[in-house]
């Protein structure tokens, strides 16, 4: 009986407390939910921005992988089996990039019926007569891109590489069809090429390609970006076997000290075309020595003529000896580099460096040159600083921004650009080495005053000194020059974003 009373009193006392507790709890919940809701909006806003930026760069990384793997000198080059020299219409290459741990089947751009596998709906729009493609090559994303430790996998799904038509481009490239350049009626069957400056429907050695990449984030963000690219070779205007660039202004006249009594040293502007070990059709002769102005001409021609060390050793176009031209250089229309402008030359060195096989910090020697460089594998080497060569022969394109010093038993087959300090010195008593191709020396560190390019800088005086016996000298060789001008990159000709459904 007593126990029953106790229980009853207890339950009556706890009634109001329970109600109060529940009520307060409810209030706290409401406040909490309101706060959560506010911060949730903020999170989603931040997240949206992050997604938009991240997916853009994800797709861009895909474009860059696709562009990089087109170039033969790159380690993950697609190879000629996947990428034939001319890519026909209907031949499509996909680079697939599934997330780590995901099977490749999670991405299938050719399965247009399954949105979950990131279908390439754009292809059918661009190539109505070639959809589905007759030849689909599928490769995996390069392991050098996806496997570095602690680096996140780029979040693009696929990259498509294919030939280009007017219809894909939605541009009437040659303005044909009667309606003018702005008319529709885009050609769907003719391949598009690149002539070095513009797209063209005329067949050239450079095919224009389309690179398309889909970026996709786990939150559903998608972005489709597209490049039009074409391979380019370095256009290096060669005006003489040896070009010494300078302003010719007082105090900045070129300095060229030839070997005084050498019997084996020559500078020859007649195309050797085979004499250097490579055979090709000979081109017209160039001046043996080229300078840019009358002052330098007077100085150099005088040096080679009086006293006459061996004026006949300096031969070239026109036959006169010593063969020196005061105006050998004409800025060609197919070259973006102006070999008279220090700013343009400095930019040019940067361009070469961006596509070089090896960039070496100076001071450097022959042992710092890439070991894989050989007669059959010429390379592009940039030395940032001084380079000293002793008993060394290199192949390809050499750029030295400091002083190039070499012994007479050294040489180079290809193009040598000494741009920067603009100083080249032959030293010692060794003999037998020769330069086959062309040599260009320019001092872009300034000082010539007047004219010049950007930044108010003008060319300074270039220096070339040769001791006795001096080696065999410099021989213009168009074969080796052509060999040194290898494809340097796939240039981006246009870029734009495409809506992805």
């Amino acid at each position, binding site marked *: 009986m007593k126990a029953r009373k106790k229980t009853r009193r207890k339950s009556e006392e706890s009634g109001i407390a329970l109600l109060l507790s529940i009520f307060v709890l409810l209030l706290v919940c409401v406040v909490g939910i309101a706060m959560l809701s506010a911060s949730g909006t903020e999170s989603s806003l931040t997240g949206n921005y992050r997604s938009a930026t991240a997916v853009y760069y994800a797709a861009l990384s895909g474009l860059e992988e696709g562009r990089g793997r087109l170039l033969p000198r790159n380690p993950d080059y697609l190879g000629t089996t996947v990428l034939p020299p001319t890519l026909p219409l209907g031949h499509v290459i996909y680079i697939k990039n599934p997330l780590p741990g995901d099977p490749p089947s999670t991405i299938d751009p050719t399965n247009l019926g399954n949105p979950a596998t990131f279908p390439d709906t754009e292809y059918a729009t661009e190539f109505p007569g070639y959809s589905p493609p007759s030849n689909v090559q599928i490769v995996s994303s390069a392991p050098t891109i996806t496997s570095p430790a602690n680096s996140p996998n780029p979040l693009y799904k696929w990259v498509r590489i294919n030939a280009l038509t007017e219809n894909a481009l939605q541009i009437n490239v040659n303005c044909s069809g009667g309606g003018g350049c*702005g008319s529709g009626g885009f050609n769907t069957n003719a391949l598009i090429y690149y002539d070095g400056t513009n797209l063209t429907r005329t067949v050239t050695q450079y095919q224009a390609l389309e690179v398309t990449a889909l970026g996709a984030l786990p939150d559903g963000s998608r972005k489709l970006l597209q490049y039009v690219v074409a391979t380019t070779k370095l256009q290096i205007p060669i005006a003489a076997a040896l070009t010494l660039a300078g302003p010719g202004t007082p105090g900045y006249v070129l300095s060229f000290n030839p070997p005084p009594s050498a019997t084996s040293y020559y500078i020859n502007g007649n195309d050797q075309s085979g004499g250097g070990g490579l055979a090709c059709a000979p081109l017209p002769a160039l001046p043996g020595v080229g300078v840019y102005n009358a002052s330098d001409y007077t100085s150099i021609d005088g040096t080679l003529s009086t006293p006459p060390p061996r004026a006949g050793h300096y031969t070239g176009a026109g036959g006169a000896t010593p063969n020196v031209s005061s105006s050998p250089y004409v800025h060609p229309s197919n070259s973006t580099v102006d070999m008279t402008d220090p700013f343009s030359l400095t930019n040019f060195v940067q361009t070469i460096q961006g596509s070089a096989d090896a960039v070496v910090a100076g001071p450097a020697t022959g042992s710092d040159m890439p070991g894989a460089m050989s007669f059959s594998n010429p390379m592009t080497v940039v030395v940032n600083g001084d380079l000293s060569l002793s008993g060394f022969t290199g192949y390809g394109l050499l750029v030295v921004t400091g002083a190039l010093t070499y012994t007479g038993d050294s040489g180079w087959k290809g193009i040598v650009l000494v741009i920067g300090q603009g100083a080249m010195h032959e030293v010692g008593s060794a003999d037998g080495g020769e330069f086959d191709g062309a040599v260009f020396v320019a001092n872009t560190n300034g000082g010539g005053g007047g004219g010049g390019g950007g930044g108010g800088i003008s060319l300074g005086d270039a220096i070339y000194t040769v001791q006795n016996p001096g080696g065999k000298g410099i021989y213009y060789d168009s074969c080796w020059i052509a060999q040194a001008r290898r494809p340097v990159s796939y240039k981006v000709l246009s870029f734009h974003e495409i809506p992805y459904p």
Partner: protein
Amino acid sequence: MSKRDRTRETGFSLIELVMALAIFLIVCGVAFEMLLGAMKRYHDDSQLLNSFQEARFGLDQMVRDVNDAGFPPRNQFEAGVTPAVNLYAATAFAWSGTSYPNTPCTIGTNCVTPSDYDLIVETEINPNGPAPHTVQWVRYKLIGTTLYRGVLDKSASPSADPDALTSGTDVLVPYVQNVMNNPPAAQLAALQAVYPAMYPGGNPVPMFQYFCESVPQPRACSDPLASTNDPTHVVGVIITLIVQAPTTEMQTGVPRLVQLKGQGRRINPN
């Protein structure tokens, strides 16, 4: 103890009830005060977020336009043909005056646009749309505290002035409100007092900062060391938006600002 006494013990006295009621009211009052405060804050924050979301969308669009600037370039047509000038982008960023598109102005010196608060992007907004495909001028211009955006089909006339043609109110429409990059002087001083880091030196904050091709890497076009400083050499644009929320901070009454930054990179060649 009798049964009656025991029953009386189970009830509440008046004092107990009054005390309980008082405590209940105090608790409720505090709770409601918190709730109302939270709701007001939520409302204010929603407004703030709406403003910022609007600004963020605006910024994203500007970045996207800069990224796509210059499409399609002239190189998409053969060298030997003469397409109308409105079929391709002569430059990624148009400039003012009749010298366009032949002689570029100098940024920071005689360019009305591009400038700190004014940018005209030349691009084809919908390259996958139906033909004919023409290029548009997309202009962003800050007037007072309103950022305007205007889109106009590029003129087919080679000597047309993009600045003059896109200046009209029929082209420019309000795009983002309460942009405080360059407010009136008094307002700038007040904002700078609250957000000194946002307005270094108490100066207005340029909405567009341009980076030009230079050696060995791009530099701010305004940098004396930059090798180039004209619109044709702009390779990147940093966009800064300072946006003020419609309402002030609830407790302190200070204006609420947020700074948004984005960067666009021009990829298309001239």
